[in-house]
C-alpha cells in the first residue's frame, strides 16, 4: 500500500494587496463622507416625537427588549444546522463537474440524511409556530 503523501494541492500564492487596500480605503472614505455629509447638512431640531422609534405610525408601547418565546430559538438552531449543511454543499458545488458522478452520489447521501432529519423535525412538530402547542 502506498500512502498518500500530502495530497493537498497547494499552489504558490501571490496575493494582490493593492485591490484589498484600495477596497478597504474606498469603504472607509465613503463611510466617512456619508456620515459627515448627513450630520453637516441635516437639520437638528430634536423633539420627543422625532426621537420616538419609528413603528410605521403606530405609537410604540413598552420596551423593545421583550422576551422571545422558545420556538424562535429552536428555529435559530435549525437554521444553524442547515447553514452548516450549506457549507458542505458549497464545497461540493465549486467543483461539482470535476468530481463527477461519485461526488454527486456522495453529496446526495449527505443531503438525503439531512432531508430525513428535516422531515423528522417537521413531523415531530419542531416547526410549529404556536408557542403553546397542545399535544394529545
Amino acid at each position, binding site marked *: 500500500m502506498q500512502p498518500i503523501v500530502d495530497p493537498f494541492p497547494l*499552489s504558490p500564492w501571490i496575493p494582490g494587496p493593492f485591490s484589498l487596500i484600495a477596497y478597504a480605503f474606498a469603504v472607509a472614505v465613503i463611510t466617512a463622507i456619508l456620515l459627515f455629509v448627513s450630520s453637516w447638512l441635516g437639520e437638528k431640531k430634536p423633539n420627543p416625537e422625532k426621537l420616538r422609534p419609528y413603528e410605521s405610525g403606530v405609537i410604540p408601547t413598552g420596551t423593545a427588549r421583550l422576551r422571545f418565546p422558545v420556538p424562535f430559538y429552536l428555529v435559530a438552531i435549525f437554521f444553524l*444546522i442547515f447553514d452548516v449543511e450549506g457549507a458542505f454543499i458549497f464545497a461540493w458545488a*465549486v467543483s461539482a463537474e470535476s468530481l463527477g458522478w461519485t*461526488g454527486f452520489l456522495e453529496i446526495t447521501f449527505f443531503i438525503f*440524511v*439531512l432531508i430525513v432529519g428535516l422531515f423528522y423535525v417537521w413531523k415531530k412538530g*419542531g416547526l410549529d409556530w404556536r408557542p403553546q402547542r397542545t399535544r394529545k
Partner: protein
Amino acid sequence: MTIYSAIFYLLAALIIATTALAITRRNLVHAVVYLVISFFGSALLFFLLGAPFLAALEVIIYAGAIMVLFLFIVMMLRIEESKRRIFPLSQWIPAAVLCVIYLGMLAVILSGIEGDMRLETAVAVPAAFSMWIFRHGWLAVEIASLILLVALIGALHIGRRPAAADKKEAQ
C-alpha cells in the same frame, strides 16, 4: 516588514482587542457585536493566509448563524444591563490558570523551533479544497451529515419545553 506582515499584525491586534472587549462588556448585545467584528477579523486572517473558502465559512457560519443564535439567547433570557459582570471574578481564576498553562505550552513549543521559519505563502482555492475533501475525506463528510442529524434530533428534544410549561407561561 512586508505589507503582508503589516496586515497580519493589524488584523491580529484587531482580533485580540475586539475579543477582549467582547468578554468584558456588561451589555450582552454589545459583546455579541464585538464578537462579530472579531470573527470578521479571523475571516480576513484566513484569507490573508491563503484559505478563502475557510474565510467565507467563518463569515457565513460564525459571524452569521452562530451570532444569530447568541442574539436569540440574549433576547430569550431578557438580561437587563446588569451591574454584575457576566463572568464573576471567581470564574476568572480558572481561566487565568488555563491561560498560564497555555502560554507556558506556547513558550515550550516556540523554544523548540530553531532558527527562522518562513511561512510559505500558498493558497488553497475553494475548488481544490473541494476536490480534496470529496476525493479523500468523503467518509468524514458523510459522518458529518449524521452528526448534523443527531444534532437536529437533540436540538428538537432538548430545546423544546414540555407543553405543560408553555401552558403555564400563557396563563
